[in-house]
């Protein structure tokens, strides 16, 4: 097909194309079902919109519980229970409902109390840490003052390499005539050195104090974090207890029951096996013992061996009988003779 033919075939004015696009030949889609669904959705939306969208979840829940109660109150006024029993039952149910509400109030109070304690703990922690920080800050300022003074004294310290004044003094002392002593400078130098030593020891003490306070802060921090972790763990435990107060007891009872059942079963099995064995032994004579033995080992043992084993069994039985007779004889005397 060349292009012209294709174009001819796709001419929208041709009848076949008109059929597709015209409504006359098109089947109408049944929109009834769709319209019904739409109406239902609109209704639901209206109901939703009736409620104030700004209401909190709590308010919606409160309305629901209070609405139910108000509804119940109306129905009871309109149609109270006719019998005394009916009234009593209703009152009993209302008491249960009251207990539910009381339980909820207690939980709310406990929650509020816990929250209060948590805030108090956080507050105390913050105050403590702030006090420590203030002390560190004061000590740091004092430290700075000491360092400043030390830097100043360095200029006059004859032993310090930074002391220009001291260098000058040395130079002057060299050029001084013999015998001349600059006592004033020496006194001053001694004072400078003393003062420096005093400041340096004070600085050391301050540094130790700062370190101490920093350690205190760190341990306060750790203690606070541990307390918070404990509180969280307690909360979880309490929540589990509130939700299922007897769960641990029930689990414990369940396991104890199962252990007891197992012990009883074990004892029964043992008794049963013991009884069976003793019955077997009681009813067994020498020949049946041999037979039992032979049955279990028939395929593996030669005839010679079989004879040997049966003789062994015979000897053992005879020895046992002899021993029993001996015991019986000794028992007559009142005591047992031990070989």
């Amino acid at each position, binding site marked *: 097909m060349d292009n012209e033919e294709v174009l001819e075939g796709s001419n929208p004015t041709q009848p076949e194309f008109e059929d597709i696009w015209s409504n006359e030949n098109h089947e109408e889609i049944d929109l009834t079902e769709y319209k019904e669904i739409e109406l239902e959705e609109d209704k639901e939306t209206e109901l939703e919109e009736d409620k104030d969208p700004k209401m909190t*979840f*709590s308010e919606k*829940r*409160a309305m*629901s*519980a*209070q609405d*139910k*109660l*108000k*509804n*119940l*109150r109306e*129905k*009871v*006024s309109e*149609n*109270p*229970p006719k019998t005394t029993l*009916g*009234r009593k039952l*209703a*009152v009993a*149910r*209302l008491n*249960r*409902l*009251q207990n*539910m*509400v*009381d*339980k*909820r*109030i207690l939980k*709310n*109070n406990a929650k509020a109390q816990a929250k209060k304690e948590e805030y108090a703990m956080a507050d105390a922690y913050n105050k403590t840490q702030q006090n420590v920080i203030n002390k560190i800050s004061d000590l740091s300022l004092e430290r700075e003052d000491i360092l400043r003074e030390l830097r100043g004294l360095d200029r006059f310290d004859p032993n310090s390499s930074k002391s220009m004044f001291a260098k000058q003094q040395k130079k002057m002392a060299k050029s001084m005539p013999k015998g001349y002593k600059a006592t004033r400078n020496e006194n001053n130098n001694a004072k400078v050195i003393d003062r420096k030593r005093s400041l340096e020891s004070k600085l050391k003490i301050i540094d130790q104090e700062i370190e101490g306070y920093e350690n205190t802060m760190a341990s306060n921090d750790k203690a606070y974090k541990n307390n918070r972790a404990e509180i969280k763990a307690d909360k979880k435990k309490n929540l589990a207890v509130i*939700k*299922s*107060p*007897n*769960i641990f007891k029930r689990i414990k009872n369940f396991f104890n029951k199962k252990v007891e059942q197992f012990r009883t079963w074990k004892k029964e099995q043992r008794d049963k096996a013991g009884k069976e064995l003793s019955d077997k032994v009681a009813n067994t004579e020498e020949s049946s013992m041999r037979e039992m033995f032979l049955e279990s080992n028939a395929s593996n043992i030669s005839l010679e061996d079989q004879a040997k084993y049966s003789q062994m069994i015979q000897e053992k039985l005879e020895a046992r009988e002899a021993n029993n007779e001996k015991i019986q004889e000794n028992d007559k005397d009142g005591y047992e003779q031990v070989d």
Partner: protein
Amino acid sequence: MSKKEEVKFEEYDIEFNEHDFDNLQNEELKECKKIIEDIKKKLEE
């Protein structure tokens, strides 16, 4: 897990469970208690 607590008033087709009162503040709960008291008074009349 403990059994969910429910209270049913079958004759009036109304039922409550403990979760109805979750997330309510104490003021709202006190109001609920008041309504319950009212109903009890009506029954005792």
